[in-house]
């Protein structure tokens, strides 16, 4: 009997004569977990989903142990998008690192830049002008809406509905073009600067924003009519991937996914930063903790974000958008930790300075990574198709997970 190692995956060997895949690795298993997972009982089979798969939201790979259609065990494999961002940032000076932040959570790029510049401002002890803070909040909330819209669209797409994603993308295209008129790019904005933002609001941005805001609420509501009450959609989401508040906290969940279990934890209120204390908005929560709650909570957050944008436009003071910052940045040796409420949860940066113009250590904390680790809790016992529901409702972005 000849066995050939498959080309890119040493765990799967192709057994020619039996005509079936032999799941046991060719080498002795390295950990107990690996031994347990790759020992396949009668009637079970291993199915490899990803790294190229329509519903993995990027290049996530999961190996599932299936019994029929029911998932017995699941083994996520990460690292297919590991680009070495932390190491690159430690070799770039402080300004350069901001642009490396953008492609991490690439649908909500501003929220990756934000903690980085906040950390550097702490290191350098810079006070940001209030107008710049308001612009940051305004563009950030716009970016949050576009991110949530995409999350909901992909949720429907993973369940087989092809239209909601296209309606979401219409709104998202409006918003990224709006942001492009102020930042200069559609996705990877590179807009926040240490001590302010890159440019003031301009007429094109304001006209596009006013145009969109005048019909945003109605449009978002109308688009949700496609799914919110749809029996097929609701039945596929209700009670799927349910998690209680204690477990979610233990798994370090944050953001909408945690708030869907009933914990009203939001960095914007819990550890206020920027001008959020001056703004009036609610923290929506839901108590169910299932996929449907996570989906509906994002709609509520969109409504709150619209409120925040409205207030920002009304309360925005005049003034400069950049603080006076030294041309050559050499902060005192020290460490800084900054965190913001990103669309997917708590996004944090930990930066250590050794007195040079480059960060000595640069650490990225991504919320999706922590959400992803609870697959092994949520999945066993569910069906194969539930994986798409759970994955889409957790809404991971692989750029941030693999860094």
């Amino acid at each position, binding site marked *: 009997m000849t066995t050939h190692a498959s*080309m890119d995956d040493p765990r799967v060997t192709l057994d020619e004569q039996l005509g079936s895949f032999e799941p046991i690795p060719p080498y002795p298993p390295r950990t107990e977990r690996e031994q347990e997972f790759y020992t396949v009982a009668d009637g079970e089979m291993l199915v490899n989903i990803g*790294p190229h798969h329509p519903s993995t939201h990027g290049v996530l790979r999961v190996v599932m142990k299936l019994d029929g259609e029911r998932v017995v065990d699941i083994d996520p494999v990460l690292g297919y998008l590991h680009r070495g961002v932390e190491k690159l940032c430690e070799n770039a000076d402080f300004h350069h690192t901001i642009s490396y932040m953008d492609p991490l959570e690439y649908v909500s790029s501003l929220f990756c830049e934000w903690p980085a510049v906040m950390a550097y401002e702490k290191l350098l002890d810079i006070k940001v002008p209030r107008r710049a803070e308001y612009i940051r909040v305004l563009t950030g909330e716009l970016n949050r809406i576009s991110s949530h819209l995409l999350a909901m669209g992909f949720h429907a797409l993973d369940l087989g509905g092809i239209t909601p994603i*296209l309606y979401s993308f219409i709104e998202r295209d409006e918003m990224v073009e709006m942001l492009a008129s102020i930042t200069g790019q559609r*996705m990877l904005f590179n807009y926040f600067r240490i001590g302010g933002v890159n440019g003031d609001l301009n007429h094109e941005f304001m006209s596009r924003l006013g145009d969109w805001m005048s019909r945003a609420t109605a449009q978002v509501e109308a688009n949700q009519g496609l799914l919110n009450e749809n029996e097929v959609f609701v039945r596929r989401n209700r009670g799927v991937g349910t998690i209680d508040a204690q477990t979610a906290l233990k798994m370090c969940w944050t953001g909408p996914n945690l708030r869907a279990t009933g914990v009203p934890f939001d960095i914007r209120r819990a550890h206020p930063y920027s001008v959020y204390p001056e703004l009036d908005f609610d923290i929506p929560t839901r108590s169910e903790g299932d996929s449907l709650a996570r989906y509906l909570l994002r709609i509520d957050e969109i409504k709150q974000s619209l409120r925040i944008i409205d207030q920002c436009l009304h309360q925005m003071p005049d003034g400069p958008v950049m603080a006076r910052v030294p041309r050559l940045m050499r902060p005192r040796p020290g460490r800084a930790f900054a965190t913001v409420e990103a669309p997917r949860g708590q996004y944090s940066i930990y930066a250590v300075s050794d007195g040079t113009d480059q960060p000595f250590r640069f650490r990225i904390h991504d919320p999706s990574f922590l959400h992803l680790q609870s697959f092994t809790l949520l999945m066993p016992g569910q069906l194969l198709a539930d994986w798409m529901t759970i994955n889409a409702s957790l809404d991971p972005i692989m750029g941030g997970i693999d860094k």
Partner: protein
Amino acid sequence: MAVNDAAGTTLPAASGARDLAEAIVVPNTLWTPTGQSATAANTSEYTHLREWAETEGARRDDARWGGALEVIPTKADYVLDLIRANSLWPLLSGLACCAFEMMSSATSKNDIDRFGMFPFRASPRQADVLIVAGTLTTKMAGPLLRLWEQMPEPKWCVAMGDCTCSGGRYKRSYSTIEGIDRVMPVDVYVPGCPPRPEGLIYGMMKLQQLVKDRRGHWPERAIGPTVPTDV
């Protein structure tokens, strides 16, 4: 596979791995091809499809011109190229950020369906174009190459974004590949970080022209994985 040992050269002995100013060539003992027709077995004979096309084997190769249709004279080839150019189904494979702009090019605002490129096939067996959208890391290179090899001929590859064209902002990282043309042939490069959806549409229109003119990598494509010798 043995490495040629040419005698008669006097060389200073390398004192250690660190001082080695030479390429390390490791004979392939890790992997043997499953079949004799696999890549490694026949690379020495022909290196490019144009040479292969002149052999007897190519005339039996019904994959190229669609079996029975090869008897139709050259005017039919023009029609076939028109057909292929107007029905380029991309593979639904997003790697990173550019994937969103790739999807954006298929959505309502910039509708790539107008050109007949809409059904983003999930299975490589039914796709014509591989749009590599996003940073290609070393870990993903193997699976992506495997996707490319699973696609049936005729097929084309579009490199979308700076990362896939040249490495872009991750060129200096330890874990990325500086341009996918190091691992697979590319027909159209679409620069930008990420390119606008209109940019991708423009690139796809250029690809249509390539298909109609029968340019691109099609006749010049190397058989099997291509490794440039001067990297």
